[in-house]
């Protein structure tokens, strides 16, 4: 199945080229996705799925829109 994923700010280095249509397996969780992308769990501070805050354990579904954030505190 495919999902949309956006890696914000400094996580942009991990943004997949096919982020608009990123293939994941049935049953994959957010954490599985982070592993697939090569992200260090420590770096990802906040995850949103379909506009809502989500835990790493959330199972992904077809068409899900995932947003990943690092710490951001600049001013």
């Amino acid at each position, binding site marked *: 199945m495919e999902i949309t994923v956006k890696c*914000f*700010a*400094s*996580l*942009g280095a991990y943004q997949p080229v096919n982020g608009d249509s990123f293939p994941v397996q049935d049953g994959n969780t957010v954490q599985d996705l982070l592993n697939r992308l090569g992200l260090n769990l*420590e770096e990802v*501070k*906040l995850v*949103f799925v379909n*506009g*809502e*805050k989500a835990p790493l354990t959330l199972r992904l579904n077809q068409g899900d829109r995932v*947003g990943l*954030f*690092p*710490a*951001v*505190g*600049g*001013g």
Partner: protein
Amino acid sequence: MRPFFTDDNVNMKKTWTVNRVQNIVNEIQVMSYEQDGACILSIEATQSLAEKFDLSPLDLDCLALEHDVLPVRYVKNFNALQVKEQINLLRSKVALVGLGGLGGYILELIARTGVGSILAADGDVYEPSNLNRQLYCRQDKFGQSKALAAKERLGRINSSIDFQVWEKTLQGQNYKGFLRDRDLVVDALGGLKVRRELLQQTDKLNVPLVTGAVAGEMGYVSTIYPGEHGPIDLWQGQSGAEDTLGCLSYGVCLVASLQSAEAVHILSGRKPSFRNKLAVCDLKDFSWQVFDF
């Protein structure tokens, strides 16, 4: 200057005779001029009437607005802001924490719009790397206090509001005095630990907080009421994305605009738009999304 018709001064209000108020209102009306069907009061008129009647220009402007006379400095706020909202704004008290990148723009915007009482704190001085984004940073100001630079500049932009600065970095016990009697706090800090501390304090002292932050060309805004957490997850750890990406001027300006608009809405009597939400703007791809916590 004596306060006028504030909730804190109900007793004092009772001692003002109806005649005195009517006198002042009459003089406001006499000194006002008509333009496009509205009665306008010039800056000089506000100043001279305030002096004459021993009021602050702020109180004088409120009195004018209550009697349908518009201080000229706010004329272009109407009618996107209603007169009643402008009065609410002039009567409101904001605490602004930080006068650097976000803080400079926020101060500029909320002061021009007419937030009546602003108390701002910053213990830093300007350095050259501030030039890329800090509105009040000038090449002839390195080593100068950001708080004092703001005080000097604001006096020439809006001398009719009450603007005070603390030339210090807030921490611990300082916060209690700083946040006392404030209706709203705006977070214009840089860094993670300091933001965690600010939230802890606003939560403890029961004041809502409009926060915002930037890294590179992206940023976010969120509004956090006591008991809520907002984007506290984004303030964990030792270093933020801004340490590797920097902070671009237009990202800072945009986030500051969002924070300012949200603050003005809340203070003027409207509902917050970003409570329990994370509004994210990314100028790298010009995207905007509002997430729910």
